[in-house]
């Protein structure tokens, strides 16, 4: 993960995550309950608790290099089981937003098979756009 850099810890992006999520990443004590319950964990390049740890060091860019924020399903297991009351799902959404606001979409409707799209429920299509595109 590279060296710890005080400038990163106090960096603009770290602050942005805080203002978007309104959650305090420093209260995480790495119990790992979020990762234990996460349905997407097997598909993630970084586990949710690793994201929390990197965030404490201001390594936002390092997190955004991985698929983790976009593999999240927003099922809120992490948030509901966190013993420190951190809304981890909100932090994941803030990370996605940081990426999406820089026009880095994770979803292009053109990649979806038109037949599949026709069968999809509206909540699925709207949900995908809302979560994975800007």
């Amino acid at each position: 993960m590279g060296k710890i850099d005080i400038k990163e810890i106090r960096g603009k992006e770290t602050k942005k995550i805080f203002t978007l999520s309104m959650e305090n990443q420093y209260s995480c004590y790495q119990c790992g309950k979020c990762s234990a319950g996460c349905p997407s964990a097997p598909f993630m390049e970084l586990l949710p608790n690793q994201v929390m740890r990197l965030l404490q060091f201001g390594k936002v860019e390092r997190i955004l290099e991985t698929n983790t924020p976009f593999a999240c399903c927003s099922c809120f297991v992490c948030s509901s089981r966190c013993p420190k009351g951190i809304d981890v799902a909100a932090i994941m959404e803030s990370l996605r937003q940081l990426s999406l606001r820089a026009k880095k979409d994770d979803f292009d409707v053109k990649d979806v098979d038109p037949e599949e799209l026709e069968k999809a429920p509206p909540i699925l299509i709207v949900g995908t756009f809302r979560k994975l595109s800007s």
Partner: protein
Amino acid sequence: MKIKYYPGCTLKTTAQHFEISALAVLEELGYEAEELKRWTCCGTVYSLTSDDLIHHLAPIRNLLRVKEEGGNRVLTLCSMCYNTLKRANLLIKKDIEKRDKIKDFMYKEVIKYDGDVEVVHLLQLLREIGIEKLKEKVKVILKGLRIAPYYGCMLLRPEEAAIDDIENPTILEGLTELTGAEPVNFPYKNECCGSYQTLRRPDIVIERARTIINSARDAGASMILLSCPLCAFNLEAKQEAIKEKYYGFKTMPIIYFTQLLALALGLNEDKIRFDLNIVNPVPVLEEAGIMVKQD
């Protein structure tokens, strides 16, 4: 008794059987669900970032319409609509600053909205009506049927939106029991199906759906009972893909809890609509001796 009803987009498209059976069951119980004269998409997912107020407008405006039409509660069926409406409502109830901004944006609305409409999911309404009253109406005992109730996420999490115990909900088990069917407990009953990842990462949903269905089968169930139209789609529509990837995977019917109730209340097939389920539940019901085999 009348109650204002917000259907949402999916109940009019891929989950028509959910709406048809739910409205029929309510009618049987003496309730009339009055669909809002004007409604829009709720936005599907609740915005989680502090500065994203614009996406709260859709759910709030729908709730404002309820008030406009003289209602003080609104009934929802879709779990995602329920969650979004419920949380947006709680937000403007507790966050005065955000409420003022949202109201200011809607300054041309005649009715002012402060979060005073109650958002109710059908399961909560049924609990209110009471298991006993439902039991009185049961005409067909669904004996011999083993069912795995599946809750998904949006009815239970986060805690502020939970309709039941967040880790060990039992409301669907209660409904299953009163029909005479046997509810089966399985460890994935409140785990995510993969949600909106279906289009972008179908591999995640295939794995999730397979795990959930196999777990229900291992626990002895022959079908899954649920409430969320996205869970229904993920668990049903992905079974073909699971079969292709995993040799020997057996399909399992996925039905809405309202279809089960409609069946137990002895309603006509046009009020149950098993023909709209992707995996046909009829063979399982025939095997259990509940439906008679038609040749």
